[in-house]
C-alpha cells in the first residue's frame, strides 16, 4: 500500500516537470457522497458519508503516432459485517493502454480499457463529474464486463454521420486468453450531442466459478454453477445531450447458455431525462429496471426496479453536486429468487475533477 501512495505522489509532484516538456496531462477525479436509506419493512434508517472513488488520469503523446492513457483509482472499501477488518483502501489500475493512430481516424489500441458495450462505459468511465445521475445503471452491477485487457481496432467520426466502430478481442471473464472474448460496437453521431450505438459481446466461459468480478460492486454469484457457459450481450444506446434537453437510454439483454438449463435471457433498461436551466441547474428523472431469468446461472435470478428524481447543480464544469431520491422495488408480476426489499435512497454526491 505504501508503494501505491508513493507512486501517486511521485506522479503528481513530477507532473509539472513533465508538462513543461511534452503534451502530458494529469487530471484527478473523485466524489464524496452522503447516503440515506429508509427500509419500509423494518422502518429502519441507515445514513452516513461515503468517500467515493478517487482516480488519477494521465495521458500523453509518445510521438510517431503513439499515445498513452492511464487511469489509476483508490477506493475506500468497507468489509462485510462479521469480517475482522472493517475498512481499507484498495488501489487498482482501471486503464493502461497504448494507442497507435495509424491512419486518419483509425487506431489500434492495446492494453487494459473499458469495454465499449454502451455509451456510459465508453464515455463516462469512473468520473462521477460526468455522470448524469449519482449512480450507474443496474446493468453495471450484474450484466456488463466493465474492463477488459486486449487489443482493439477503433475508428471514429467517419463520414457525414460520424460513424464509429470498436472491434476488440481480449481476455475472457476468467482472466486469461485461452478462450478470448469478442466485442463489436458501432455507433453514429448524426448531430452534435447525439450518439446512437449498438454492441455485441461474446465470451465462452469454461468454468463459471473462476470468473473475475466485473467491478467492485458486482453482485455476481459464481457459486451458482461451475460448468461451461456461452455468455452473450446485446446492447443499444441512445444519447442526446443538448443545451437544454438531455436523454440517455441504455438497453442490454444478456444470454447465458448452459448445457444443463439451456438458454437464459435477461434484460435491463436505464432511462435518464434531464432539462438544463441556464446550464447550471438540471432537474432530472431516472427509471432503471433489470430482470434476469430463473435459469440464468451466471447472474442469478434478479428482479430490480428503481425510479426517482434528482437535481444537479453545476458550480463549475469540474464541480457539481447531485441530490437524488430513488425508490427501489421489484417489477410487478415478475418473480425471482432474489426480490429486493422495497426502500428509499437519498443521495447527495459532490463530484469533482482537478486539473
Amino acid at each position, binding site marked *: 500500500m505504501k508503494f501505491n501512495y508513493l507512486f501517486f505522489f511521485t506522479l503528481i509532484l513530477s507532473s509539472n516537470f513533465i508538462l513543461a516538456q511534452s503534451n502530458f496531462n494529469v487530471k484527478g477525479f473523485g466524489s464524496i457522497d452522503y447516503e440515506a436509506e429508509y427500509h419500509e419493512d423494518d422502518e429502519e434508517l441507515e445514513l452516513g458519508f461515503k468517500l467515493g472513488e478517487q482516480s488519477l488520469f494521465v*495521458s500523453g503523446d509518445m510521438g510517431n*503516432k503513439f499515445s498513452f492513457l492511464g487511469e489509476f483509482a483508490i477506493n475506500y472499501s468497507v468489509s462485510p459485517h462479521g469480517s475482522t477488518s472493517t475498512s481499507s483502501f484498495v488501489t487498482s489500475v482501471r486503464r493502461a493502454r497504448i494507442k497507435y493512430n495509424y491512419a486518419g481516424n483509425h487506431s489500434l489500441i492495446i492494453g487494459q480499457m473499458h469495454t465499449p458495450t454502451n455509451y456510459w462505459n465508453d464515455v463516462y468511465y469512473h468520473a462521477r463529474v460526468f455522470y448524469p445521475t449519482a449512480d450507474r445503471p443496474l446493468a453495471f452491477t450484474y450484466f456488463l464486463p466493465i474492463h477488459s485487457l486486449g487489443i482493439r481496432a477503433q475508428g471514429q467520426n467517419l463520414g457525414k454521420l460520424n460513424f464509429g466502430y470498436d472491434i476488440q478481442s481480449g481476455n475472457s471473464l476468467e482472466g486469461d486468453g485461452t478462450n478470448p472474448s469478442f466485442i463489436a460496437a458501432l455507433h453514429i453521431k*448524426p448531430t*452534435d450531442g447525439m450518439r446512437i450505438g449498438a454492441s455485441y459481446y461474446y465470451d465462452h466461459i469454461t468454468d463459471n466459478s473462476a470468473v473475475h468480478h466485473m467491478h467492485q460492486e458486482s453482485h455476481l454469484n459464481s457459486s451458482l454453477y461451475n460448468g461451461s457457459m456461452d455468455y452473450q450481450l446485446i446492447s443499444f444506446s441512445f444519447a442526446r445531450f443538448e*443545451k437544454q434537453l438531455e436523454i440517455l*437510454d441504455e438497453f442490454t439483454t444478456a444470454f447465458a447458455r448452459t448445457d444443463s438449463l439451456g438458454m437464459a435471457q435477461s434484460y435491463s433498461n436505464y432511462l435518464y431525462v434531464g432539462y438544463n436551466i441556464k446550464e447550471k441547474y438540471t432537474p432530472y428523472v431516472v427509471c432503471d*429496471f433489470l430482470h434476469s431469468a430463473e435459469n440464468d446461472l451466471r447472474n442469478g435470478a434478479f428482479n430490480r426496479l428503481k425510479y426517482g428524481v434528482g437535481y444537479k447543480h*453545476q458550480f463549475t464544469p469540474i464541480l457539481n453536486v447531485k441530490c437524488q431520491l430513488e425508490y427501489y422495488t421489484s417489477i410487478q408480476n415478475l418473480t425471482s429468487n432474489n426480490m429486493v426489499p422495497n426502500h428509499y435512497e437519498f443521495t447527495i454526491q459532490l463530484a469533482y475533477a482537478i486539473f
Partner: protein
Amino acid sequence: MLYFKSSITVFVTVAFLLLMNGNCYGQNYSSRISIYGNSIDEKPYSTSEIGAILKGQKSRWKNGNSVLIILRFTQDEQTQYMAQQIYNKSVQAVRKYWLGLVFSGRSSAPLFAESNEEVLDLLKKNKGAIAVFVDYKGKIPTEFKVEITNPD
C-alpha cells in the same frame, strides 16, 4: 419477453422521433474569428469541416501530422464569442466538452492560450496545429492561412 419486446419498441420509437427532430448546425464565422494552420492539408475547407476539426473529430491530417487544436481561452468576452461561434456553447460548456473528450480517450487535449500572441507562438512551433484567433490585428505569415468557403 414481453418487457423485452416493449422496451425495444419504445427505444426505437423514441430514437426515431428524436432523430427526426435533430438540428444540424452550420454557419459562417464572423470577421472577428480567423483560423490559421501550420502544415495542415492544403485545400479549401467548408465551415462545417472546420467546425468538425475544431470539435476534435479529426485525429490526423492527410500529410501525416497529428491534429493539434490551439484555442485562445480565458474568461473574457472574446473567449465567450469564440465558444459561441465555434462550439455553440458557453465557455464553461466548452471546457467540460474537452475534458470529457480527452478523458474518454477519443481525442488529444487542445492547447489553451491566454492571448492571440501566445496562440501565434504555439502555432509556429507545432506542425499540424490549427489555431483560432479572435479580434487579432497583428500580422500572421501567409503560409498559415486557411481557406474557408461557404457551408456545404
